[in-house]
């Protein structure tokens, strides 16, 4: 609890110096994007980097609920799936362009979140997690059973995945498009965080009843956060499509949400860019380890448990704790 309250204090303290810091961060991020995009030569790594950005978007969406609202959104994969299915259906069944499908997916996701959230966000804790899981279960059964989503086989063989003049089948273009979208979403989220809405959300997460007693409309703010998170998840689903080249009912599976939860937990729920760092670790590290898929699940699940037991706020907590311990030691030596 102490770490969260000090965070809130820091938030209040950011004035002009904070916006300057933000500018520097944005320039740094843009530099990183250019460096990675121009520096990487192999198509495999460029594609993976692009996918990582798409996955990071999904992790950010999950963290709006986990770190922002304080609920475990096991069903967030449903919005990811909507985002993956919408362009796939638009391209394969109606011959419409990819961008249009992406927009349709985001609109459907936002509308679905408004409806679902209106019903489920009055619930909290395990009740919300279970119902959210259930919603994704219902969505999975639905795409399994209706015809135009391709049933169990899913949809594949898309004619053209492009955003305007940018052809996403070129790995470098794909990376630049996804990474710039990721950066824009991060800037948007940073703005929201320091807005009135962001503060209201933080107050709800820390103490729902206190926030309510101070006149915050708890249900409405939670619903706003949920409706904000859904189109971001859908966008992530769309942007992962050029990498996966196929969309199946599995894309709505709760396991997707668990992957994103892990990425969020590794990076830290309290940091805005924590989920991005977590996603990079989550997608890149296994490439070097040459793990069997099940070994990967086993290792990462045990890692989640370990993180939750020793550093529930994210791995950076450990680094902070180690730093504090070092400082203590050096001071006592003096």
């Amino acid at each position: 609890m102490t770490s969260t309250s000090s965070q809130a204090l820091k938030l209040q303290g950011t004035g002009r110096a904070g916006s300057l810091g933000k500018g520097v961060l944005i320039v740094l991020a843009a530099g990183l994007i250019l460096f990675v995009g121009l520096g990487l030569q192999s198509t495999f790594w460029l594609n993976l980097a692009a996918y990582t950005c798409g996955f990071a978007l999904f992790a950010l969406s999950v963290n709006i609920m986990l770190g922002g609202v304080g609920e475990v959104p096991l069903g967030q994969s449903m919005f990811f799936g909507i985002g993956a299915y919408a362009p796939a259906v638009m391209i394969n069944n109606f011959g419409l362009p990819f961008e249009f499908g992406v927009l349709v997916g985001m609109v459907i996701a936002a509308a679905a979140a408004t409806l679902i959230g209106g019903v489920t966000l009055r619930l909290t804790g395990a009740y919300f997690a279970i119902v959210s899981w259930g919603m994704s279960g219902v969505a999975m059964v639905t795409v399994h059973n209706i015809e135009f989503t391709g049933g169990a086989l899913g949809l594949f063989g898309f004619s053209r995945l492009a955003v305007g003049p940018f052809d996403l089948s070129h790995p470098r273009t794909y990376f630049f498009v996804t990474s710039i979208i990721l950066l824009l979403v991060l800037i948007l989220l940073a703005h929201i965080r320091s807005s009135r809405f962001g503060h209201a959300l933080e107050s709800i997460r820390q103490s729902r009843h206190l926030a309510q007693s101070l006149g915050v409309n708890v249900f409405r703010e939670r619903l706003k956060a949920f409706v904000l998170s859904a189109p971001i998840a859908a966008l992530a689903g769309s942007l992962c499509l050029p990498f996966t080249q196929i969309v199946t009912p599995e894309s709505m599976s709760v396991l997707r949400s668990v992957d994103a939860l892990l990425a969020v937990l590794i990076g830290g729920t309290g940091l805005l860019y924590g989920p991005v760092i977590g996603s990079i670790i989550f997608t890149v590290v296994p490439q070097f380890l040459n793990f069997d898929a099940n070994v990967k699940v086993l290792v990462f699940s045990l890692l989640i448990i370990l993180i939750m037991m020793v550093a529930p706020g994210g791995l950076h907590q450990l680094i902070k704790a180690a730093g504090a311990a070092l400082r203590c030691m050096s001071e006592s030596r003096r």
Partner: protein
Amino acid sequence: MDLFVQTIINGLILGAGYALVAVGLTVIFGTLHIVNFAHGAFFALGAYAVLMLQNLGLNYLVAVPFAVLAVATVGYLVEITIVRRALYDRGEYGSIIITFALAQAIVAATILIMGPDPLPVRSPFGQTAISLFGFFLSAQRVFIAATSVVVLAAFAWWLKYTVRGQQILAVSQNPKGALYSGINVPLIRSLSFVLGVAAAGLAGMLLAPLISAFPTMGDANVIVAFTVVILGGLGSISGAMLGALVIGLSNAFFETYVSVSWTSALGWVLVILVLLFWPQGLMGRTQINRH
């Protein structure tokens, strides 16, 4: 009319099986205040335990009690290493993620050790069907229902008439009060967790001859168990039993008269409706998880 009665019978038998998983889940929730998302993994562990004992040459009926002991042992180890240290009195946020991750880890470990494919479990009842007043019943399903009813009745009796059972009820009603009355609360919590997962394991063993043992076999069942438990009210044992019958009957009727492929969505729809209009469940005590 025959179809109608047959559907009712199927539903009751189905419900008796669900009740075992659901009661385990609700006992754990009642005393530990965590929703055990790893419940399905213990369900699968039960099936694999009986399978391994069978491979050693034991008869199915002899293997079942030993397998229950094996699952209980694993449950106890998990309780003292993870659940006890990480979960108690820490809000639901952490417990949801930890138990979910635990489930993933157990399933992945099972795949690595036993392989991903379904493995048949033999039972003396085999695939035989009994005919009763002109209605057909699978012998294994009757065995499941009978075992489940006997075990649950014994459990209910134990809760009501023994000191330990009363202590479990006391802890689930008021952990602090129980502690002040001299009840060993950590011990009772361990006991509840072990009993709960052992019940899940037993259900897995009973169902394995019908659906074979496979690593993710617990998923579908634990989802049904969630719907049952929420329908009955989290933490309420009689609610879980009633909920199991309601879900069993409604699933059977939906399968017979509407559609098989949409049945798995039905439970969730029921849960959402119940949470909307009856948030404390059919027999739940208070509504604490709404605002």
